[in-house]
Structures are given as structure tokens and as C-alpha cells.
């Protein structure tokens, strides 16, 4: 049985004005468990708190009920008071007799009656309270960033600058991501490589940053502060530590016809290759699907020419296990496949290209050394049609397109159109648009310049079909403003393909137990207030893996995620919320209902041996709640059919006792 002290606060006249506090204190004195009951002008004042401390000592109180303002105001205060008096802070309950009573009810009789009932409910609850101790878990002061694009690089740099070790895992042979493939960046038109490559170098040279390129995460265990991650370093058949990146092997490799993925297959590379000149790490990688030596043991030229002796055909995939306190997902995006959009003839004509391909075509380091030439015949295109919203905002064709707006296409299309007109003023440039969406600093001005200063012809409407005819592409579209159908004989068509999360994100989300939306973008812990955190504690989101983003947005989110990680890693220990769910394994059926509704992936299962009453041993699957991950919503308690799952601090019997007390 508890020994409960009741403290009724006057809050000056705030409560005492419409609640007879003396009567409340007196009425609650006779409640079961109550051994002391009093009232005071300001319970939250120092003398009020001292009064509580004295009463705890004098009356050997085990529980406290404060009838005062909202617990959202002073629950923490009184918990500290209890703590100072040697009580467990969770033995305190607040009856909210100010916001819910004196402030909303004018009549003192009614107010007093209700205050007594609210007090009674709090007493009933405290009678069933149990001391709670928040779990503590140590924090591994290292972070993992998954994805080495601009988002991952920025996050890693910020975390490392704060003094924490960071590992970047990048699945490609080099970091840099999509931004490395871009030519210029909107709206300022500075060259992507010029602003990105210094950051790549910074990351490579940072003493706190390790880059695992050509690597993938293969499994994730543990929880916030204590993740264990297994990283698969794919065999690149080149000893990274020795390779100097001189490129001699690349020059001599006889396998010359391997499509170059960095240039989206618009030119070729060798079987041993360095993706691009500024690659980080600048080491060669052998493509095992193209290399003759690896495929049938014939060749070995690269090993012969490598003076450093870095080539190692026997290299195997290597698994590295590391511990981290925080994980940042920065897996980025990809343009969608356009295979299913027959009307655009993407698969029928080399001269129908995506915007990313266009970036490579105009990039000085691209397949045409920056000259805008048609992929089919290398001629200079005179009429170019840009088509926006290809696969975006597509609500009826989920199997081929995306329902959302890809956000960045309007701006890069304006950029492409403008740059084309700038470099080749003789070119006619058309842009088919549905809406031009340019919210962002200097964005609309940028688009207007394309129209007004560069004479790009924007047509409000869509393209219905593109038919290659001879050297031309016949583009049939609608011009809605003039209510006519237009036909343009174009030389080149550029499709602004929708973007989607990288394909590796889904399996990664499963490993991380991080939730995703229906489009496979990672879900935020709160769409407004916690936009860079995943609902899974310790997992943070950076860049386009969370939703379509342009570079400035990506970088700011990357830094924001870093700030959250730094906040987490600067703690020595994580003190959990003790009001977490816990499962009574004797009653648990192991049915997985709770796991399915847990937004945090806090529930796992284990097979446990039970000694049955008849002395047999039975192995049963039971749920386990990780208190460091559980946030205490209690959703699982209702999903649980057997009632094995309960929520500390808001236990079933506590809530039902409150119901009883109120309905008494």
C-alpha cells in the first residue's frame, strides 16, 4: 500500500478563486492510500517544494499527488522535487485542477467537485505507480553515412568537423554522386565540379573521415547509440592502398568497349577504369563482368603495366564490422526508367535523351567534350525540344511514373534551355510545360531570364508523341494557350524524367527498420518538426532519399542531419524515457501484432525456453521491447491480444483505475 501525500496548490487565486482548495485537500485525505493532505499558495515555489520534501520525510510518503496546473507545465518540477526528497520521480502524479477546472468553470461548487474527482483519479493512479528508472545506454561516438553524394559528403564533413569519426559507405567506385555528373548548377550557373570536387577532397583528406567506396551495407543490428553494421567491401581487384591512380593500366587495357556508366553509356570505358578524373578515391577498379583476365584468365596486361603492383586478381569481397552511434541515410535518387513511355520514342531514337544525359553532353568532361552534338550522328542540333514532367505527377500510371512532382526539373530544364541558347544562339529551343514551378531564392528570376533574355520558347502543353522520321524527330504536342496542336521537327528531344529514390534504399530501410512511404522515400519522424530524423531512433536522413531536392536544399538538410548526429554523439550516455512498453513474456504469444504497429521498430522476437508447470521445457517465441528505441506511444499495448504488452507509467490498470475514480 502506498503512503500518498496530496498537495493542493492555490496558484494564488488562479485555482483558489473557483476551487475551494481546503475542501479538496480535506476530501482527498480520506482516499485510500492518502496519509497526508494539505494546501499551499504556490506549490511550485521553493517553499512549496520544501513543504513537499518535508512531508515526504515526516510522513514517510511513497507517492505524491499535486493538484495544480497542467502537468505539461510543472510535472518536471515536482518530479525533481520528489527526486530531491529521495523518492522516485515517477511516483508523482499531477491533477490538473487549473487548466481543466478553475480556469474553465465559473461556479465554485462545480469547480470544487470536479477538482476532487480529478484529485481522486490522480490518487488512484499513484496507488498503482511503480518506481521507474530510465534505461541508460552508452553511445558509440562514431557515425556512419550511407551514400557519398553531396548529401553524404556534407553530412560527413560537418560531423567530422565537430570531432567525431565518420565512415562513408559508397556503392560506386568513387564518391560524388549525381552532382559529379552535372555540368552547371542553377540558379547561379557555377560549375558543379568546381564546387563539389574540393568537398570530395576535403572528405578524403579529413583525418576523422574514412571512405568505403565500392562498398555496401550488408546488415545492421543494434539500436540508437549502439549500432553494429556490417559493410561489404566489394572486390575491386586493385589494392587501394598502393594504387596511385596514374591511369597507366587504363590506357593499356585492351577491353575498350565497355559502356561508360558515368556518361550514361554515351561513350565507352575500359575494363579497368577510374570513373572520372577527379574521382575520390582516385584508384582504378576492374569491372569483373568485362575483364578477360577475371572471366577466363587470359590477359593480365594491367598487372604487367602497373609499376606499383597494385593489381590483385584474387581479391575477394571483404566484410567489415563496425560500431556506430548514429546512421545517416544519404542514398539519393535516380531518374526513372523511361522504357515504358513508348510515346516519347526514348528506346527508338538515340536523339531522345534524358536531362541527365544532356548534362553529360554539355559537360566539358563528357563524351563530346562539352560540344552539344546529337548522339546519333554527331551533328549540331538546330531545333531542340525539352519535355517536362515525364513520369512526374502521373497519378494514373503508377507502374511507369510517379504521382509526385519531382521538383528539380523545371529549374534544370530552364538551365539547359538557357545554356543552349547562350552557347548556340542559332538553336531553336522549345520547352513543353504543364506548370513552371520555381519557388526558391532567385529561381523565378532565373526562369524569366531563360524566356526573356535567351528567347527560349515555352509552350504550355504536353507532348503526345514523338516519331523519328529520317534525321528528324517529329514532336506532336498541344499548345493549350493557343488551342492548337503543334508539330515540331526537332533534332534533339530532352526528357525531364521523374526522379525516384535509389533502388538500394528499400532493402536498406528494411535493415534499418526505418519506415518508407509508398514511393520508397524515407519517412521523417515528424514532417514538420523532425524533418531530418527517421522515426527509428538514431537513424537520420540527408538529401533526396527523403524526397526530391535540389542542391541547396540537400546541403542544408545534410548539415541539419549532421547537427542532429552531433547532438546525439556528444552525449556519453543516452537516458531513455522510462515510460516505455514492456512485454510480459509469460503471456506473450509471439504473434507479431505489436511489431507490426510499432513505428520505431523497437520490438524484436526471440525464442525463449520456458519451464512449464509440468516440468517440461517449451521453446516459445516472445516479444522483446528495446527500451532505448521505444518512444512510449503505447500502440502495441492495444494491438496485443493477450494483454502481455503494457506501457510503464500508463499501465492498463492505472488507466482503468483513473476511469474508476472518475466514474465513482
Amino acid at each position, binding site marked *: 500500500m502506498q503512503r500518498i501525500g496530496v498537495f493542493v496548490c492555490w496558484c494564488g487565486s488562479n485555482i483558489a478563486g473557483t476551487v475551494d482548495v481546503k475542501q479538496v485537500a480535506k476530501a482527498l485525505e480520506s482516499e485510500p492510500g492518502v496519509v497526508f493532505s494539505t494546501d499551499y499558495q504556490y506549490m511550485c515555489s521553493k517553499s512549496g517544494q520544501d513543504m513537499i520534501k518535508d512531508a515526504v520525510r515526516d510522513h514517510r510518503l511513497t507517492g505524491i499527488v499535486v493538484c495544480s496546473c497542467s502537468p505539461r507545465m510543472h510535472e518536471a518540477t515536482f518530479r525533481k522535487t520528489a527526486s530531491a526528497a529521495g523518492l522516485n520521480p515517477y511516483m508523482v502524479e499531477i491533477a490538473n485542477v487549473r487548466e481543466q477546472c478553475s480556469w474553465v468553470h465559473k461556479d465554485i461548487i462545480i469547480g470544487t467537485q470536479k477538482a476532487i474527482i480529478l484529485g481522486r483519479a490522480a490518487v488512484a493512479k499513484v496507488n498503482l505507480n511503480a518506481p521507474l528508472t530510465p534505461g541508460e545506454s552508452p553511445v558509440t561516438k562514431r557515425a556512419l553515412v550511407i551514400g557519398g553524394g553531396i548529401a553524404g559528403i556534407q553530412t560527413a564533413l560537418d560531423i567530422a568537423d565537430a570531432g567525431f569519426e565518420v565512415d562513408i559507405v559508397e556503392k560506386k567506385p568513387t564518391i560524388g554522386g549525381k552532382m559529379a555528373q552535372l555540368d552547371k548548377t542553377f540558379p547561379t550557373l557555377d560549375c558543379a565540379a568546381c564546387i563539389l570536387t574540393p568537398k570530395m577532397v576535403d572528405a578524403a583528406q579529413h583525418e576523422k573521415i574514412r571512405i568505403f567506396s565500392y562498398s555496401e551495407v550488408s546488415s545492421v543490428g543494434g539500436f540508437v547509440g549502439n549500432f553494429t553494421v556490417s559493410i561489404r567491401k566489394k572486390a575491386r581487384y586493385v589494392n587501394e592502398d598502393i594504387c596511385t591512380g596514374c591511369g597507366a593500366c587504363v590506357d593499356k587495357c585492351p577491353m575498350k568497349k565497355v559502356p561508360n556508366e558515368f556518361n550514361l553509356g554515351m561513350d565507352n570505358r575500359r575494363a579497368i577504369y577510374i570513373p572520372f578524373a577527379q574521382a575520390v578515391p582516385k584508384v582504378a577498379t576492374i569491372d569483373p563482368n568485362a575483364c578477360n583476365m577475371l572471366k577466363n584468365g587470359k590477359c593480365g596486361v594491367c598487372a604487367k603495366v602497373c609499376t606499383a603492383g597494385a593489381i590483385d586478381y584474387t581479391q575477394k569481397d571483404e566484410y567489415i564490422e563496425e560500431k556506430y552511434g548514429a546512421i545517416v541515410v544519404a542514398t539519393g535518387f535516380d531518374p526513372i526508367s523511361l522504357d515504358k513511355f513508348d510515346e516519347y520514342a526514348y528506346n527508338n531514337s538515340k536523339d531522345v535523351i534524358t536531362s541527365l544525359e544532356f548534362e553529360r553532353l554539355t559537360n566539358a568532361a563528357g563524351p563530346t567534350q562539352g560540344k552539344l552534338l546529337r548522339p546519333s550522328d554527331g551533328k549540331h542540333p538546330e531545333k531542340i525540344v525539352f519535355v517536362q514532367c515525364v513520369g512526374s505527377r502521373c497519378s494514373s500510371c503508377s507502374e511507369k511514373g510517379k504521382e509526385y512532382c519531382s521538383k528539380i526539373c523545371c529549374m534544370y530544364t530552364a538551365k539547359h534551355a538557357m545554356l543552349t541558347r547562350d552557347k548556340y544562339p542559332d538553336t531553336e529551343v522549345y520547352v513543353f510545360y504543364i506548370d513552371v514551378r520555381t519557388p526558391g531564392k532567385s529561381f523565378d528570376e532565373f526562369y524569366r531570364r531563360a524566356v526573356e533574355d535567351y528567347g527560349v520558347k515555352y509552350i504550355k502543353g504536353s507532348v503526345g508523341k514523338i516519331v523519328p522520321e529520317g534525321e528528324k524527330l517529329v514532336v506532336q504536342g498541344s499548345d493549350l494557350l493557343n488551342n492548337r496542336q503543334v508539330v515540331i521537327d526537332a533534332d534533339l528531344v530532352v526528357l525531364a524524367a521523374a526522379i525516384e529514390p535509389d533502388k538500394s534504399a528499400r532493402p536498406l530501410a528494411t535493415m534499418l527498420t526505418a519506415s518508407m512511404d509508398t514511393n520508397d522515400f524515407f519517412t521523417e519522424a515528424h514532417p514538420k518538426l523532425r524533418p531530418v530524423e527517421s522515426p527509428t531512433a538514431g537513424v537520420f536522413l540527408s538529401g533526396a532519399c527523403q524526397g526530391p531536392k535540389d542542391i541547396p536544399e540537400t546541403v542544408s538538410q545534410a548539415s541539419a542531419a549532421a547537427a542532429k548526429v552531433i547532438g546525439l554523439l556528444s552525449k556519453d550516455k543516452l537516458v531513455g524515457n522510462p515510460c516505455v512498453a514492456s512485454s510480459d513474456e509469460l503471456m506473450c504469444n509471439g504473434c507479431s501484432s505489436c511489431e507490426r504497429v510499432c513505428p520505431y521498430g523497437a520490438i524484436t522476437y526471440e525464442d525463449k525456453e520456458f519451464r*512449464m508447470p509440468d516440468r517440461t521445457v517449451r521453446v516459445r517465441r516472445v516479444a522483446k521491447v528495446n527500451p532505448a528505441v521505444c518512444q512510449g506511444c503505447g500502440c502495441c499495448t492495444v494491438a496485443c491480444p493477450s494483454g502481455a504488452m503494457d506501457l510503464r507509467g500508463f499501465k492498463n490498470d492505472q488507466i482503468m483505475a483513473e476511469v474508476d475514480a472518475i466514474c465513482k
Partner: protein
Amino acid sequence: MRKCLYKDIHKIFARVAEKMPLYIPAKTGDEKAEYKKWSEGDELFEGLNTVKSPKDLFFPQSEDLVRFKTEGKNIEITDVREDKGPFAVFGVRACDAKSFEVLDRVFLTEPRDSYYASRRENATVVTLACSRPSETCFCKTFGIDAGEPGGDVSAWIAGDDIVFSANTEKGSAFLDIIGELTEECSCDAVDREKEKIAVIMERLPLSDLTTDGFGGGKTEDLFNRAEWAELSEACLGCGTCTFVCPTCQCYDIKDFKSGNGVVRYRCWDSCMYSEFTKMAHGNNRLTQKERFRQRFMHKLVYYPENNDGLYSCVGCGRCLKSCPVSMNIVKVMKKLGGKKND
């Protein structure tokens, strides 16, 4: 003996109901029947067995015993028993009438159960002989004569008449109440009816079932028999058999916290439940096999051992009809009866 036309039975009911509440078996839905308080329009259910037996009238499924009321730190205790006064129950079959004897031996021996006793004393039991027993009936196994149903008044439906015969003082008083609706008669028609019943009883599929191998003193023979495992394997552990049984008398006393006090009540319990007689150390019957065995050992061995050979099964056949998995005392008796563990 007194008789009246069976089609005028409702007049009898009306007359009795003027004097005291009358309970008769009546239909509750399309298919099942229950003992219920008679009111105008209710018709006697002519089938044999109600789902629940009439033991409900003396030992209801749940009854409040006492109420504790807390006011602040004071507790006030009130006896909340309902004293219903005299009542009559009509249409009780021989097996159910016999079951009262089984219950009496439990509740009326010291310490006497005053709740039960009061209802028994207040009740006039009018029985009715079975002219069309069911294939599940086996009262004969326990020496019960379906043609001599007993109780305070025995009744037979003989031809177009219903014939009454008082067995006790309460019975005579009952016949006085219905006196002017009935006329004196000889016992010839009843004797003919009894003979008919005796013939039918012989024809029943379970008429050859005997209690050989059971009874007091057989604990050691039966307790460790291997067959219990197979017999109990389908048992779901529900309480259907116990709750429909006229002789099962186990109950639990529980407290219900009403918010403004405590209601102490008792309710039927079932030895088939895993929580039955659960104690601080846990449960003494650990598996369904043991719980299953308990129920039948109690009916066929322990009870007769302590009650002069009286079995606490009356062969009413309710459990045969109600068990969700069709496991029942007949199957147990056939499997274990007459054999020794060797």
C-alpha cells in the same frame, strides 16, 4: 392420484402462478429450451433436456453474497442475498430430480449452505416422467427409473391426461392448489405408461452401459490408467460440460470492484479450466489430462466413495449433446469400465 386433461395444463400453470412463481422448461429460441418463470402464453417444452439443468434454480450461475461499501476509509458490509420465498418448478425429469439429491449432499451437510438451503426449502419440485427419452439418455445406468421421477410431486402424461401423485407434504400442498382443476383417478393409466417407458429404456442405445469398474475404492485402479491421455486429448478445456451438468457443483467466490465498493459473489466454476483451484503456488492439476480426469474421477469414484455409493452423474445426456468435440462421460465409462489396469 389426480388427473386433468393434458391440453389444459396451462390452466394448472396459471393457478400455481397465482400462488407462487412457477418455473417450467420453455423454448428460448428456435432450437433450445431453458427453465424460465412461467407467464401467460409460455408453453411447456416437451423435449427432454433444457440446455442448462434446473440446478440453476437452487444454485444459480452467479449470485451476490455480500457487498462491501467503502466511504473514505470506512467499510460497510451488507448482506445482499435475495430471499425469493416459495416457488414451484414443473417438468423436472427423473434424472434432474435425482441430481438434487447429489447437490443436497454437498450443500446441505455441515457446513450448510444457507443460500442453497433456503431455495431448496422454498421449492416444490414437480417432476415429469419421460415417455420419449433421447438416444443420449442413460439414467438407467445409475439406477434411475425414468418412469418414477420423484420430487415432491410426480407427474405422467398418460394418454390425453396428465396424472399427478404427491410424494411429500409440499407435494400434497401443491395438489391442493390445483385440486379443483383435477380429479381423482386410479393408477392404471400410469402403470401402463410406466411399462411403456420401461420397454423404451431397454431399447436405448446406451442401455447396456454399466457402472462396473467404477465407484468408491476404485481410485487406484483408475487413476493411472493410460487411456486418460487419449480420452482427454481433444478436450478444449471449456466449461460447457460442467455448466450444463445438473450435478456439477463447484463454484468460485470472487470480488467485483464496482468503483464504489466491492460485490462479493459466487459463480460456477469448472474443473476443466486451467485456473480452477489455482493457488499461490500455481495449479495442482497441470495439464488438461489431469483436469479431465478429475471431472470424471469425481463423478464416478470420489463422490460415490464419500456418499454411500451415490454417483454424481445422473445420465441426463446433456454433456453428450453439448460438448464441442463430442467427448463425454459415456466414452470415458466405455473405455475404462470393467477393465483393470494390467
